[in-house]
């Protein structure tokens, strides 16, 4: 598939700190790429280098097949960015803010009017058009920040942690909006340190730490890296050791732990494990309170890769 972004050997050194260390990756047309990493891992720095806002020490950055420079206006006209920090004018209303930024891309007044309305619709700010940013709640302000970045219908969009400090409802609203944009044909780079978002949203994930790539691939590929596929938990009292040995003897079982109340079984492969377990418990007439299965999260992956929790 066609590459929208190609980055080769990117190095960015702030005065004393190497924020990006020999980073190379591509973004394919039409995908949502997740850049996942803890605070300070270099997500924003990477985006600012790609946008030609920052000088970098080494590397080649190509967008739409051409080298990106500050005056690559043809490339810039196809890019939209939702910055991590809210970047709007306090003195302009919701409508005016979107109209101003959209106007830097779209000359035709009629088209622009339609685009601005579309953006307002997408982020759900219809009832707030005349509001000044200071009068918006945190979540609504984030939505305005998004609308300002995407109103001109760009082909390539960067979202830098757009859901920070947003309640779950607003967050779902934002994630739905991003999916809509992808469905309409945009290519998206999405940075976050929330695992769940990446799992819901992204086609492919790059896990970043200290400016280098720890791992990359689809979410499924990454979970495979962590060797575990499924966890089944059973709440059961006074389970006999012979049953535990029996479960352990199964080829597909990776590990079994039991603390007198909770039985935790992890499986290497993730098929029918829950059903098999229920059948087994029935056959042996073991009484249990609760049984449930969990898919491993990217957090498990990250833990596996770095030995530390992603969210600090």
């Amino acid at each position, binding site marked *: 598939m066609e590459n929208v972004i190609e980055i080769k050997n990117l190095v960015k050194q702030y005065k004393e700190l190497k924020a990006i260390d020999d980073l190379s990756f591509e973004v394919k047309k039409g995908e949502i790429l997740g850049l996942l990493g803890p605070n300070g891992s270099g997500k924003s720095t990477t985006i600012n280098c790609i946008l030609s806002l*920052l000088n970098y020490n080494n590397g080649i950055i190509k967008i739409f097949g051409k080298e990106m420079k500050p005056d690559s206006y043809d490339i810039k006209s196809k890019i939209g960015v939702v910055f991590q920090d809210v970047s*709007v004018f306090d003195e302009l209303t919701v409508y005016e803010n979107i109209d101003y930024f959209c106007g830097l891309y779209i000359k035709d007044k009629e088209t622009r009017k339609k685009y601005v309305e579309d953006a307002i619709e997408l982020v759900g700010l219809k009832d707030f058009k005349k509001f000044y940013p200071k009068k918006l709640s945190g979540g609504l302000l984030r939505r305005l920040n998004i609308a300002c970045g995407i109103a001109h219908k760009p082909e390539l969009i960067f979202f830098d942690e757009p859901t920070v400090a947003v309640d779950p409802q607003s967050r779902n609203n934002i994630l739905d909006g991003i999916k809509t944009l992808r469905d309409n044909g945009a290519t998206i780079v999405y940075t976050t340190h929330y695992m769940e978002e990446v799992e819901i949203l992204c086609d492919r994930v790059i896990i970043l730490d200290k400016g280098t790539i720890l791992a990359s691939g689809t979410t499924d590929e990454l979970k495979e890296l962590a060797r575990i596929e499924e966890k089944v938990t059973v709440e059961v009292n006074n389970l006999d050791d012979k049953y535990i040995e029996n479960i352990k003897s199964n080829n597909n079982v990776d590990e079994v732990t039991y603390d007198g109340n909770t039985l935790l079984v992890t499986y290497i492969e993730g098929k029918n494990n829950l059903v098999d377990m229920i059948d087994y418990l029935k056959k042996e007439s073991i009484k249990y309170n609760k049984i449930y299965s969990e898919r491993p999260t990217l957090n498990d992956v990250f833990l596996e890769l770095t030995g530390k929790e992603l969210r600090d």
Partner: protein
Amino acid sequence: MFIHNFKYSLKTLFRNKMLIFWTFAFPIILGTLFNLAFSNIADTEKFDIIDIAIVNNDDLENNEAYKTVFKQLSDESSEDRMFNTKYVSEDEAKKLLENDDIVGYMKLEGETPKVTFVKSGTNQTIFKYVVEEIAQRSNMLSNIVEHEMKESVMPENINTEEILHKANELAQNNEIKLKNISNKNLDYMMIEFYTLIAMACLYGGILGMVAINQNLANMTNQGKRISISPMNKAKLLISSLLAGYVAQLVGLALLFVYTVFVLKVDYGNNVGLIILLSMVGSFTGLSMGVAVASLVKASDNAKSGILIGITMLGCFLAGMMGVSMKYVIDKNVPIINKLNPANMITDGFYSLYYYDTLDRYYFNVASLLIFAFILIAISFFSLRRQKYDSI
């Protein structure tokens, strides 16, 4: 695109309350305070009290008309006092005139008044006018009543108020240039208002600063967003700067309208040159804003603080809090005020008002332009960067 950005820049500037306070409201408030402080002096001395002398001879003793009118117009307790009159011998009058203690003296020879002065000027004109007026009226009166009751030629029939009114008009008449003003109070007050205009011009720099800042990726978040758009940076900056300049001129126009029509400040008659100086002064203010915006890495508020501080200091040295400051600096460390844009503007107005030639005026205008271009040239190197080491 240029107009789109210009329009929205104007909107953001005019809706920024902090900006509008410092650039629009503050000079007007300060002007009002000046006016209150000086209104006592200004009210009681609409124009200068003129020092004159009258030769104290028998002809004066016998002429009720001159005696009474000058007595009334010299009455210290009267609000309409025009003259400070000394009654002296002719020799003494001559001496006073030589020493510049009086603007002129009058001597009656029979019924005919003779007015003597060495220089010409408003005060002399007023003096002469009053004498002629008395002569005419008393002649008319005496012709009418001579036959009947000569002793009843009452000086009351000569309306001093009317004479005063006419003299007042004369003083305000455009053809008379107030070049030889001796009254320090007037001096004082005008310098205050000149520095006020200078302050407004330079405060306008905050508008320029904010307008530029909005476009810089390393200064504001909006600047990042603008910088990633497919807009030419130079075009954006010029369009924003123009918005800053227009906002500045609007503020300045308001200040002029307010001081001229409400506070009744008289800036003289050279309207074209006054506007030119204000526009050049504003441009210099703008250049200071551009320099602070592009060269100082700090928050908007800190940058405004820097501009306000520099402007205040400049205006103080140029005589805003007391004209003696300007004189002291001009005399002892002239270099400071030569480099002080607030003083260049103040001095430009001052020279326009008090000097016949325009040399000093144009020197100040040129200094302001040079000052502005140097600042803009320095800023240019920072402004033309498009990528930053750190944002």
